[in-house]
């Protein structure tokens, strides 16, 4: 295995760490943890049953989004490691810059993650419309 393959590997791990692991923890982990902490106790803060149910659904959807972000990240990294070898052959395949592997590994194209973050923003803004400031602050203290 060539040096560059090793370096790409290290880069991939570094990239993955930069994007995913603790420290710092993955963004998806943080978003999910915040939502999970609120989902179970939202009805202790919001007395209106309808609002509480919708808010719980919002927080649970955020947890699902977190999992989707994780899946997208792993799929993108797998794609980065395998795709350049398929795309090119001969000496070009051994050139991680030319093949685009390096860039891909360090910052994998996560179009799904952009969509997930958009949805997250939308959900968080909807949650604000369902909460009074006092309720919002009480829930925010959970995590």
């Amino acid at each position, binding site marked *: 295995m*060539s*040096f*560059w*393959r*090793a*370096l790409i*590997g*290290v*880069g991939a*791990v*570094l*990239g*993955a*760490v*930069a*994007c*995913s*692991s*603790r*420290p*710092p923890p993955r*963004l998806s982990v*943080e978003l999910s943890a*915040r939502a*999970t*902490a*609120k*989902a*179970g*106790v939202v*009805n*202790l*803060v919001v*007395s209106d049953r309808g609002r*509480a149910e919708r808010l719980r659904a919002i927080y*649970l959807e955020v*947890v699902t989004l977190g999992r989707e972000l*994780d899946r997208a990240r*792993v*799929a993108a*990294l*797998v794609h980065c490691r*395998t795709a350049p070898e398929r795309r090119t052959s001969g000496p070009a395949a051994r050139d*991680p*810059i030319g093949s685009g592997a*390096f860039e891909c590994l*360090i*910052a994998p194209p996560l179009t799904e993650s952009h969509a997930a*973050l958009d949805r*997250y*923003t939308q959900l*968080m*803004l909807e949650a604000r419309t369902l*909460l009074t*400031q006092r309720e*919002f602050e009480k829930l*925010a*203290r*959970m*995590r």
Partner: protein
Amino acid sequence: MLWVALATAIMLLSGELSREADDGATLALLLAALRKSTIQDVADAPRRAAALRAIASFESGLEAYRRQLATFKACITAADQKYGATRADYDACRGPLETERASLRQSLVSAQSSYEAAVTESERAHVAAAVMALPEAHLLDPTRAGEGHPPVPSRSRGLEGAMSERHSTLPRNAVAIMYGPISSATFGQRFPSRIIDGGTSYAHLDQSLSDASGVPPNLWNMRGGARVGMFDDFEAGALFMPLQLGPKFHYDPVLIFFTQQFRFRRFDLAFRASFQTPGDTGWSIAPGTFLSIPGQRLALRTGVILPMEVGTLGHKISPIVGLNVPLRVTWNIVPNFFVLTDSGVAYDRLAQQGGLEVPLGFGTGYTMLAGSKVIDFTATFSWDHWLMPAPAQGSAQLHWEAYRVAAGASLYFQAL
């Protein structure tokens, strides 16, 4: 906080933290190997220095990116904490990260070129071989790229709120400091010689029951402990502060329990193994199985428990075996406030004829959020020997004079 430390240790043992930490530790090893091999394999000092500078530059580029990533997450967190946040606040978090990605790419490409210029083809091969020979290099294997991805938890790991919605075990990573009655861990903990619940309690027995059981007629207890959700449906805990305050102060046996739960769509099944450290009647054990039906307003919980007191190796006794089938109905009038009723049947000593009893109890509690913690304030009043339907002598008897009052509070929090 001893229990926070313990919970953290348990999470480490159960792998909760290790998955997060593995990549970082592995990465450190791989980079150390890369550096060491470069020092060993690149003989020429100026070229070696240039190669090491390239590696350092590689690391610093990534470090800058990681810092920016942390800034991005802090930005999202700040927006999450701000009631008046708008879409613009969230969108503003992304811009710098994209810029930093581009800059990272440049710094890495530059580092790579510098390294390439500094080392020869054969040196590169040696370095690559040394790095890839490490067992940790399996993470670099493309065919295993998806491994190590944390499995999807089968249960939400946040604290549970309303009492009627709670399951038989705590969610994973949740810790409870128990100093109050009405906990699932002490539900049905009725041994032949003592009834165990959390909090401060006062039990009064009429003289006939006191004589028959050997329990003082006026008994004050104070019991506290903790339990931890170790896995999604498994918890363990102990009432490790079991004090008898009166009529004579002493340290009661410690109650230890493990509960495994199986959640179904509408109900939970749980198996609990409890035991007490040796007391007057030696070791006590109480295996039990439980059924609970949680609900938004109403919850039902029952179980079948076989409590036994079995002596010790040094002090052998004929095992005292009982049977306990508790029943609890909990009604959350509002999510924060609940009332409950306890009953069931109990046979404290199966060998004793006419010992069947029907207890009756009532309880209430208020659940509140205090910062990131949930606190239950709870109180119960129960007649543990309320009805004896078929005593050995005479007809059915009601024991209104034998009652127990307990009160206290329990605190729940997420350990991680």
